[in-house]
């Protein structure tokens, strides 16, 4: 029963979603939205599980003085701080337990939660994202090292696309006559992106879609059960 009930729900809900995709008439047209709302409600309750896990793992590491335990402490303090200011004075238009904190708002220019979000969270998040630029450079360097015929081709294509997207590339081949405009670097770059690149991407997307159909069918029919924890 413990195993059969989730399998029945998976079968029933899976079938319902597929049918709803093709039938615009009520009640089918409302099914997907309703199921999504149910998922959101369950997710809302599950957040508590996440918070408990967060506290447990961080407190254990602080207690055991693991390497870098002060970072876990900083994480916990930040979490509690955001929780308190959010609960006390709310966020944006929503008030908290102590109203809107008008005095604090006058001092900070905005609510304490929004202040921390704007001037602590956002810069930290942007810093993490900006690391991407450096990682792209190091990954590109490795990808473009010429070792074989294929990597040679990759390097050549990359040079054309990179140059074609800059004004320098445009300047380099700007003198070409009208009959040879295809070889003008921006045009060549557009051609590579529009045809060979799109074709390869679409092939991956079509195969992934087929994989999704197969995977979904296995789950709906109960052949694939390992996501439930056990395959028996």
């Amino acid at each position, binding site marked *: 029963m413990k195993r059969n009930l989730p399998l029945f729900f998976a079968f029933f809900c899976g079938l319902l979603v*597929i049918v709803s*995709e*093709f*039938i*615009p*008439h*009520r009640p089918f*047209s409302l099914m997907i939205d309703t199921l999504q709302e149910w998922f959101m409600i*369950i*997710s809302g309750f*599950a957040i*508590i*599980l*996440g*918070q408990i*896990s*967060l506290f*447990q*793992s961080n407190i*254990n590491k602080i207690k055991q003085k693991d*390497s*870098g335990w002060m*970072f876990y402490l900083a994480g916990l303090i930040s979490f509690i701080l955001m929780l308190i200011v959010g609960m006390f004075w709310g966020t944006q238009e929503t008030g908290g337990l102590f109203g809107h904190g008008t005095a604090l708002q006058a001092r900070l220019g905005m609510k304490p939660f929004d202040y921390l979000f704007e001037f602590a969270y956002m810069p*930290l*998040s942007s810093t*993490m*994202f900006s690391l*991407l630029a450096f*990682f*792209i450079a*190091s*990954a*590109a360097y*490795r*990808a473009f090292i010429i070792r074989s015929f294929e990597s040679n081709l990759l390097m050549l294509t990359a040079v054309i696309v990179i140059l074609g997207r800059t004004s320098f590339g445009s300047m380099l081949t700007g003198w070409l006559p009208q009959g040879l405009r295809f070889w003008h670097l921006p045009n060549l770059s557009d051609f590579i992106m529009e045809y060979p690149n799109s074709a390869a*991407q679409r092939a*991956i*997307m*079509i*195969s*992934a879609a*087929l*994989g*999704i*159909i*197969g*995977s*979904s*069918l*296995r*789950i709906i*029919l109960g*052949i*694939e059960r*390992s*996501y*439930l*924890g*056990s*395959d028996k």
Partner: protein
Amino acid sequence: MKGLLLTTLLFLIVLACYASPGTMNVQDVPWDEGKALNITWQTPADSIILQRADSLGVWQTIFSGPALPAAYSDRDLIPNKSYSYQLIAIGSADTDTLIVRASAKPREQWFYMHKLSFLIILVIVSLAILIYIQRARMGKEFYIRRISGLDSMEEAVGRATEKGKPILFVPGIGDLDDIQTIASLTILSQLAQRSAEYDTELIVPCRFSMVLSAAREVVKEAYLKVGKPDSYKEERIFYLTDDQFGYVAGIDGIMVREQPAANFFLGSFYAESLILAETGFSTGAIQTSGTAQASQLPFFVVSCDYTLIGEELFAASAYLSRDPQQLGSLKGHDFGKLLTIILILAGVITEIVGWHWFKAFFEGVQ
């Protein structure tokens, strides 16, 4: 005589034009969920105002502008409720302003006709998968090509065991409603069994609470299955944060501090893919990645030792379990690919010949 008839005909046409200076037609949009009406009009006026009566019968303007292209689609309506429309054709200085009224009811239909091609393909591919599963049940053995990214799992676990370092498994940044996350969890089940057999520590940081509870259940069952429930450490499968870059920062910290010997990035990934893979590369770990996000695959290919591309992620569970039924379903995928190739070739040929209905049918044009 002929001249007289022609003159009379021309006179009648001109008279008809003047006698009916404007018409409006309101029709239900066919094969939809009953939330839209198509309004078309004919008027010699240059600009029009289109109004709809609200629940109190007061006319509310929904469109105001040039009379052409003489069509408007009113959306987000309530199904099976009658709607009245009023068209005001604004005449020039020497002509009168004309008002035409019409009403109609949007009706819910029982089928999205523009999805017919999608349904046909879905049915054919699903039938093929079911037939291959049935044949596998009857004992037929199928050849499945080798997927090096999945064959490497043993190597990665072995290396982690030799070095006495943990294995890091990242189930992507999607929630449990993402099929890629489900596929990732099925691979986690196989990986957890192997790590339990070798007594190698497994770290699973999760972005969502639902994924956390599912991952815990999957790993716990895997440890039970190999008879090592005592080796299961619940605290090593933990929640980090819902925030995308906060999650990446947390995982990067784990990679740098704990130096896992093997990293698995399987599931749904977006802008964080390269940050994760490059940090893992810098720690010298053996890395296996897999996603169906075509735009993230190049980053993984560059920075990881093995990459599961697109459908390989979804085939992983079947491939690793070696369950004949699941392997049979993989043959169904191959049939789907063959069908797609045939349809693409047929599409190219019919477009060259000039039979545009074939392309239109698959584009879902009604």
